[in-house]
């Protein structure tokens, strides 16, 4: 079989799953809200009541376990069907991804891409021209190359695991079918995103995952905070999308096509033409703004921590493992453009340009700085959070920063490597935290946990493994990928960012061990009643945890660096075809670091991570409240307050953009509207209401039967008279007249 036959099916299966789940859910729930509908035929009334019950409990959190531990059984229609369709749809897509990858490997040996064109979406025509000869046309087409193979592989596999996990985790939720419908739709969109053979299809997937993210964050839509978090995510992403769209337009204008193969071939062949005047840099920065929205980088990161309002499997799948890495994927996909931008900056500015000059000329420099700063910034916030999911959320923002730091240092392979390893251990950490939350019937505050080590042994062990991996302990996956990024950052000339990133690695180790200690060690800090309820999760949840933990251990062995193993880095070699060589004179001199330097860099990061682990372990031992962190917070109350409150960035955004800009400005225009339009309407309404009374009396007395027509004329004329008297219509006419005067003035000024 050929890869072409498999590719279209990969996203199609989840889509079919979405249709089945969605339709079944609609069929079983469409009459629920209707008071007139006959009740109780499927026990819906009961299901509905549990809403109110749910809403009353633990406000402010992922409201998992609505029925669980609070009594009250929720009857879910078609539960068995949903439980099968959701995971199977995802599983089939995983199977077909593997088949497609195998077939592609056999056909091409992994050296070049295969593109399948399904149909033409926007056709080119004689008149739809773009700069004369070039025509814009884009197809609904999928491609498979090393980058896509990698993405579809782990997205569909981890996605399937999380579907299975959700069967257990969401089992008590009344919206079970809706959840699986959204999750399948997400899988469809994400796979379209990574399979797309041009920026247009990528954008379709990009918007699709954004929509699903919005729907799933607001999954508990009865709660204001969940609905608000969904809105926040959507708005932030739309701001990013403006950048993406501008980037897309810029690419169209430059290349006359948005097909990846054609675009990058043209750019690699003739970088000078496209880079001239900073055109490529502008396009890259626009695209990167899009990536900042989707992948939660400064200044658009604030939505991701709030996104934790969604169910935990969603946090694991969408807001840790897959969707948020779409920005990194897009930057890696467009690596040709970023490399050209970098070389152009070096050519125009020379080797020793100032940081400011580089930031305005080199898009990859911007990526590196934003990534590095975000990594550090988010890690510091993570230090003082006590909500288990919030810690993981800031950790995700921080790790995404690492990925961008890698890409910005032109080590796209290392960035993608971290995307890959991060998917395993972070999905495991999130699902583990979900398992803890499940065990505690919805509790998310770490200050109310502790001592769970032996009560939830599987959860504890898998989370511990993943914590070691993210902390950068040698020979686990996170160590290899993080180290690859750190080394490349240093070697490619960002020593300050390297230092910041190493420091971040220490912080990461610290806050992750803080999380483990607070959750699993010491005394249980909740009530006795809660303690009695604690139980290990069912097998549908622990098995995915163990598989992910296994991945967290071994995923890193795909990319062991050359200086350790002695032979070529398998990961880099696999990805090589997606980094086509640029024209002569545009390939940078490869920076060769000595083995001693590489070992030294590695040792530094290991030592720093070790210090972080040791401090985290020591600070959070002993009785709660912990003495040492308390002392530090007490000694630096101002700093603690800022960190604890996430530097008040949300508040600042709210104040600046929502209160000042949007509300005030909107209010101003609204006032204008109210003064001149609504006010007038209200005024006239009083007059016309009076008129209406008179005329209805008139209607009754005189106007029955044949004189209808005459009455109409009278009434209309009479009301018209009233309306004229009110003065407002003149106001409108005056506005129009002024409008024409304005046009005349503009005409005179312009000509």
């Amino acid at each position, binding site marked *: 079989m050929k890869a072409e036959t498999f590719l279209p099916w990969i996203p199609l299966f989840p889509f079919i799953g979405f249709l089945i789940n969605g339709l079944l859910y609609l069929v079983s*729930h*469409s009459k*629920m*809200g*209707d008071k007139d509908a006959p009740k109780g035929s499927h026990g819906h009334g009961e299901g509905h009541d549990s809403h109110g019950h749910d809403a009353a409990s633990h406000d402010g959190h992922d409201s998992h376990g609505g029925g669980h531990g609070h009594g009250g059984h929720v009857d879910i229609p078609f539960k068995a069907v949903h439980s099968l369709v959701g995971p199977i749809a995802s599983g089939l897509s995983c199977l077909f991804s593997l088949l497609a990858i195998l077939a592609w490997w056999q056909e091409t040996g992994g050296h070049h891409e295969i593109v399948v064109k399904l*149909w*033409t*979406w*926007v*056709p080119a*025509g004689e*008149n*739809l*021209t773009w700069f*004369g000869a070039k025509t814009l046309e884009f197809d609904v087409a999928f491609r498979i190359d090393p980058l896509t193979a990698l993405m579809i592989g782990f997205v569909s596999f981890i996605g399937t695991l999380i579907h299975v996990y959700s069967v257990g985790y969401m089992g008590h939720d009344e919206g079970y079918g809706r959840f699986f419908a959204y999750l399948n739709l997400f899988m469809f969109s994400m796979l379209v995103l990574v399979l797309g053979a041009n920026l247009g299809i990528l*954008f*379709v997937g990009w918007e699709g995952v954004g929509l699903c993210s919005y729907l799933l964050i607001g999954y508990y*839509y009865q709660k204001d905070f969940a*609905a608000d978090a*969904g809105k926040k995510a*959507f*708005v932030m992403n*739309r*701001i990013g999308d*403006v950048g993406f*769209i*501008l980037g897309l*337009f810029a690419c169209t*204008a430059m290349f006359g096509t948005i097909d990846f193969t054609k675009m990058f071939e043209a750019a690699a062949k003739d970088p000078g033409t496209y880079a001239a005047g900073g055109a490529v840099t502008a396009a890259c920065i626009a695209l990167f703004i899009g990536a900042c929205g989707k992948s939660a980088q400064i200044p658009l990161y604030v939505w991701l921590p709030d996104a934790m309002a969604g169910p935990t499997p969603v946090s694991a799948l969408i807001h840790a493992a897959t969707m948020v890495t779409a920005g990194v994927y897009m930057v890696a996909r467009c690596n040709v453009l970023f490399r050209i931008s970098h070389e152009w900056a070096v050519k125009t500015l020379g080797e020793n340009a100032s940081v400011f000059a580089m930031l305005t000329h080199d898009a990859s420099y911007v990526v590196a700085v934003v990534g590095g700063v975000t990594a550090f910034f988010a890690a510091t916030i993570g230090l003082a959070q006590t909500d288990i999911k919030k810690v993981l959320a800031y950790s995700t923002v921080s790790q995404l920063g690492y990925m961008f730091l890698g890409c910005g240092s032109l080590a796209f392979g290392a960035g993608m490597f971290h995307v890959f390893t991060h998917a395993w251990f972070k999905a495991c950490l999130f699902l583990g935290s979900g398992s803890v939350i499940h065990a505690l019937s919805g509790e998310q505050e770490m200050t109310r946990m502790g001592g769970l080590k032996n009560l939830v042994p599987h959860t504890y062990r898998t989370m511990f493994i993943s914590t070691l991996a993210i902390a950068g302990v040698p020979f686990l996956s996170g160590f290899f990928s993080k180290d690859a990024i750190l080394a490349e950052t240093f070697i490619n000339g960002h020593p300050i960012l390297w230092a910041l990133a190493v420091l971040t690695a220490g912080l990461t180790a610290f806050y992750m061990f803080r999380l483990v200690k607070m959750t699993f060690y010491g005394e249980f800090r909740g009530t006795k009643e809660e303690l009695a309820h604690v139980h290990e999760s069912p097998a549908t949840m622990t098995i995915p945890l163990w598989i992910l933990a296994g991945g967290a251990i071994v995923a890193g062995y795909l990319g062991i660096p050359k200086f350790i193993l002695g032979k070529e880095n398998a990961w880099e070699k696999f990805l090589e075809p997606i980094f086509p060589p640029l024209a002569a004179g545009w390939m940078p001199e490869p920076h060769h670091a000595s083995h001693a330097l590489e070992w030294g860099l590695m040792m530094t990061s290991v030592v720093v991570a070790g210090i972080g682990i040791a401090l985290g372990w020591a600070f959070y031992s002993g009785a709660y409240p912990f003495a040492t962190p308390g002392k530090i917070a007490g000694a630096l109350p101002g700093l603690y307050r800022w960190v604890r409150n996430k530097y008040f960035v949300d508040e600042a955004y709210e104040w600046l953009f929502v209160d000042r800009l949007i509300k005030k*400005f*909107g209010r101003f*225009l609204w006032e204008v*509207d109210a003064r001149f*339009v609504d006010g007038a*309407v209200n005024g*006239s309404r009083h007059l*016309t209401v009076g*008129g*209406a009374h008179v005329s209805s009396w008139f209607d009754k007395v005189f106007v029955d039967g044949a004189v209808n027509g005459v009455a109409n004329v009278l*009434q*209309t004329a009479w*009301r*018209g008279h009233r*309306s*004229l008297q009110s003065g407002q*219509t003149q*106001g*409108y*006419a005056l506005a*129009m007249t*002024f*409008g*024409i005067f*304005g*046009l*005349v003035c*503009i*005409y005179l000024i*312009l*000509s």
Partner: protein
Amino acid sequence: MPISIQLTSADFWAVAPELILVATGLLLVLLDAFAKFSRPSFPYIALAGVVIANFSSHYTPGKFFAGAIEASDLTRFVDLLTLMALALAILGGTALLQRDNKGHGEFFGLLLWSASGLMLMVKGNDLLIVFLGLELMSFGLYVLAAWYRELPEAVEAGMKYFLMGAFSSAFLLFGIATIYGRMGSTQLAKLAELSGTHSPLLDPLLALGLLAVIAALGFKLSLVPFHSWAPDVYQGMTTPAIAFLSTAPKAAAAIVMVRVLQALAPAGLGEPWTPLLAILATISILYGNVVALAQRDLKRMLAYSGIAQMGYAAIGLATFTKDAFEGLLFFLAGYLITNIAAFLAVGVLSNGEKGPHTLADLSGLGKKRPGPAWVLTIAMISLTGLPPTVGFIGKLVVFKAAVDQGLVWLTIVGVFGSLISVGYYLRVVYFLWMKEPGREVNLPEEDVLSGASYLLVMAGMLILGIAPKALLDLARAAASAVSLAALR
């Protein structure tokens, strides 16, 4: 010079759709007067008239009635759009009207007559025929605006629309007279000939005439600053009528504007005119979108949304190339389906035609009425301009043509406006699906006709968004009827 005009059957075939609509309207009014019992069949009769009119619209391109009327692929395109809007308004609106026992023959008659005026306006090759068509179109709508004549809001809407419409007609006539005074003809083809290859638009007198025409057509398009009637009229007008008024007449006005501009500037718009139209587009987009954010009444919100959408259309006008015209035609067709969908859904998801249509009333209706709720959801997505809906392709082609012509800043304004619009379009979706029901809303019954309208608009918005080629081809053929420069 004595004038003798030879009329042949081809002349009448050219206006056959209009004639059929007028005849159907007359039949309905007469039936209402003499056979009231036949009222339930009125929507079907009206629909039959629309279908027959569609099949009769197969004239050969050319000039008819001594050059006063010109039939082409463009007019065929407009016929199609208009009949489509009529069909959807009748299908979706009947249930709303019958609920209040307002489905009189006159309603359908006025709607059909108005549509026939609209089609005539676009066929007019003579500015006077354009005026005649525009007036015929408007008179029907003036009366329809006040259809619920016992409601103060409706009477206010009708009166205001009439007065302001009369005012704008005066401008149109003034403009036509000035153009005639300067050029000596009212025939568009003749004007294009006289204008020759160089644009005479720097002539102050002619410029004044054209400005007056732009203002009058801008009134129909509800471009800022000629928009002030729109919110009141939208709010007071009954839903099926406003669904029609807010779409087809705007499409026609935009197309007529292109034809007039082409006649006076066959070589392309010059320096003061492109920025002038661009300014109209910019302020419409910004004003419409921002004020729409503050609206709590759905119909008022859709009025401001319409102002902004016509701002996007005005980007196509300012660009003024063949590509832009194609894009504009596609955009208008997409807007037509989407906006009608939005209005029909708003009508069904409310307390009825007599009360206000507040946003809060939508709370939680997604579960109660999934059909119209989905229609409204998709319409909002399409109005926002997100894929895979027709609104996305529409904006894409219009913006692309503008970028092509170097109007990058105008495109940025458009994209920025779309960004703002997310705020209020999405709020509707949020209320539909994510809010708990508030006060009890007494929803009207749905019937087979409205079900059919949902299916049609859903299919239209999605299919044309995923596979837009057929419509793009139609738009391309239609656009070639007006000879615009391919690129400057």
